[in-house]
């Protein structure tokens, strides 16, 4: 009995061995390869990279495999690796206007310069389980655009901005905040907020964004534009004096055109909610842009009444690695504290039975 409540090194080793066995599954079935995960579970890989804050499909795929498909566990693995990497500088802001677009839709205009492009989307599919998924049937090659890539695709928000109908993007040369390098102290800037949201839990942000649509911090949103594609990452090397391209990343950007505001010499104009996420994840980018706009309540003198407008609440609880760690720590032994509670509870019950509690309280 006494032994049973104590863990030991042997127990841990055996548990991990069993877990490795379960991860591998039936040995007669070929093991998943990292290439298969990158190629065929790419949206899982994208989510792990986004919330793991590290753009590396290979590592993310290994993490998905190691985590047996548990994406939060995979995100955790990637984060724990990322934390050991040095931060050697800031990239220049990504120029999403120059994105090599794979998908681009606007809900505010029927047609836009550069056109609407559905791209690889689940939208308009009928959600019927496809019998073809049970086997490996040949898949037709997709249609590709003939060199349309030359055509300029200005951002819808820039088109609105040209008319002064939306608040301008304020350029800011200050070094962006980094929540992985400093303790957060509230209130925070929008840069840090967007960073936290970009790595925040998709499910949590989805629910918060949804809550703003249901009246808890309403922002009257329109999807100005969602675009997905590859953008160059450039850094400025001091010795060179100009920017060089160090690689490219796939990102999803959502510009939400929201409730207009005016006053104090400023004519009314739309406001912005913004979301940028690694990989292909419209759901996440849209949720981020809804929450971003809701969190800007103070800027527009809106009353902060809803959870999605509460910066400290949103930012302190959107990180799933923190959340899962702390929730799951409840399964660690707590018997010392529980013993203390037991002891008190027994005392209180004894005193209640003896009718003394009331008298003492009345003193």
């Amino acid at each position: 009995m006494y032994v049973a409540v104590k863990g030991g090194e042997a127990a841990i080793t055996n548990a991990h061995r069993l877990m490795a066995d379960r991860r591998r599954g039936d040995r007669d079935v070929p093991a998943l390869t990292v290439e298969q995960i990158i190629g065929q579970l790419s949206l899982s890989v994208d989510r792990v990279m986004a919330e793991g804050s590290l753009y590396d499909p290979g590592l993310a795929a290994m993490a998905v495999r190691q985590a047996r498909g548990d994406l939060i566990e995979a995100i955790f693995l990637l984060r724990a690796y990322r934390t050991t990497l040095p931060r050697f500088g800031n990239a220049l802001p990504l120029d999403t206007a120059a994105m090599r677009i794979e998908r681009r839709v606007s809900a505010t205009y029927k047609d836009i310069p550069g056109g609407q492009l559905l791209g690889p989307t689940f939208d308009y599919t009928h959600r019927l389980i496809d019998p073809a998924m049970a086997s490996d049937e040949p898949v037709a090659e997709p249609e590709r655009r003939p060199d349309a890539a030359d055509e300029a695709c200005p951002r819808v928000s820039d088109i609105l901005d040209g008319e002064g109908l939306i608040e301008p993007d304020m350029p800011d040369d200050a070094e962006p905040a980094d929540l992985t390098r400093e303790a957060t102290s509230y209130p925070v800037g929008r840069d840090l907020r967007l960073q936290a949201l970009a790595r925040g839990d998709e499910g949590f942000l989805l629910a918060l964004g949804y809550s703003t649509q249901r009246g808890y911090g309403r922002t009257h949103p329109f999807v100005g534009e969602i675009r997905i594609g590859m953008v160059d990452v450039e850094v400025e090397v001091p010795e060179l004096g100009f920017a060089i391209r160090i690689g490219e990343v796939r990102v999803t950007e959502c510009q939400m055109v929201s409730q207009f505001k005016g006053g104090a010499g400023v004519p009314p104009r739309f406001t912005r909610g913004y979301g940028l996420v690694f990989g292909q994840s419209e759901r996440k980018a849209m949720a981020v842009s809804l929450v971003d706009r809701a969190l800007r309540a103070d800027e527009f003198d809106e009353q902060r009444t809803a959870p999605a407008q509460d910066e400290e609440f949103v930012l302190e609880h959107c990180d799933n690695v923190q959340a899962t760690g702390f929730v799951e720590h409840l399964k660690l032994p707590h018997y010392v504290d529980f013993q203390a509670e037991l002891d008190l509870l027994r005392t209180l019950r004894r005193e209640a039975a003896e009718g003394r509690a009331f008298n003492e309280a009345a003193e």
Partner: protein
Amino acid sequence: MTTLPEYNFAYLDEQTKRMIRRAILKAIAIPGYQVPFAAREMPMPYGWGTGGVQVTASILGPDDVLKVIDQGADDTTNAVSIRAFFAKVARVATTTKTTEATIIQTRHRIPETPLSGGQIIVYQVPIPEPLRFLEPRETETRVMHGLEEYGIVQVKLYEDIARHGHIATTYAYPVKVEGRYVMDPSPIPKFDNPKMHRSPALQLFGAGREKRIYALPPFTDVVSLDFEDHPFTVQRFSARCALCDAANVYLDEVVTDDRGGRMFVCSDTDHCETRRAEGHRGAGLPQLGQDALEAAE
């Protein structure tokens, strides 16, 4: 495919350690004050000791002897895991003996054997803010600490007495440090609170998820909050340890059968083993077969 590099001594890179050491020094200079620090993501989950692990990693040297306990025991799974982590990434000597350790990382207990000068005890802290369950907002609680506005804690303790006849806080019992900051002692049972008072050891507290470090330098005044007519008291056990016959120690209640059978044993396994080695025999021992006894050790 990416290959993973070797990790630095004690896992964290030197820049990070330096940043954490600065936070520790500030914490020592202002006893009981929660110093924000840029906690890193660690390879163990938040809530499982990432704050304590970062503090330990930052103060650990190659000559240190490390002891890790959880619930007072060296052999609980999480203590085993953290000890193995440092044995692997820092290759330091480890021990289960309180007296031999230079650094003791703990969750939920302070060893029964009094700590001595030169030792450092590192507490794992889940919620560093003693006012958190009375005021959820950090922006508010920082102002309250700044203004030394601690009335709501006393009110909470008073309401306990009004409702139950007792202060109903049994662990993580708030203390006042050097007459200034109210501090969360981490979820140790209040039984251990008096051990913090004027301890000759350096006491460091790390909260990873909440990104806070605080400290008690040696011989700091640590007073548990109370009222004149309801003075602070610690738990008293009517039982003695069934294995080593110790009295006045914190005991774990072990359920021995489904008919209400209970036995009480030391929560501090090192203390219990040391006493048994000295020849103390508890009342529970004769009933245990020789095999079970060996297994228990």
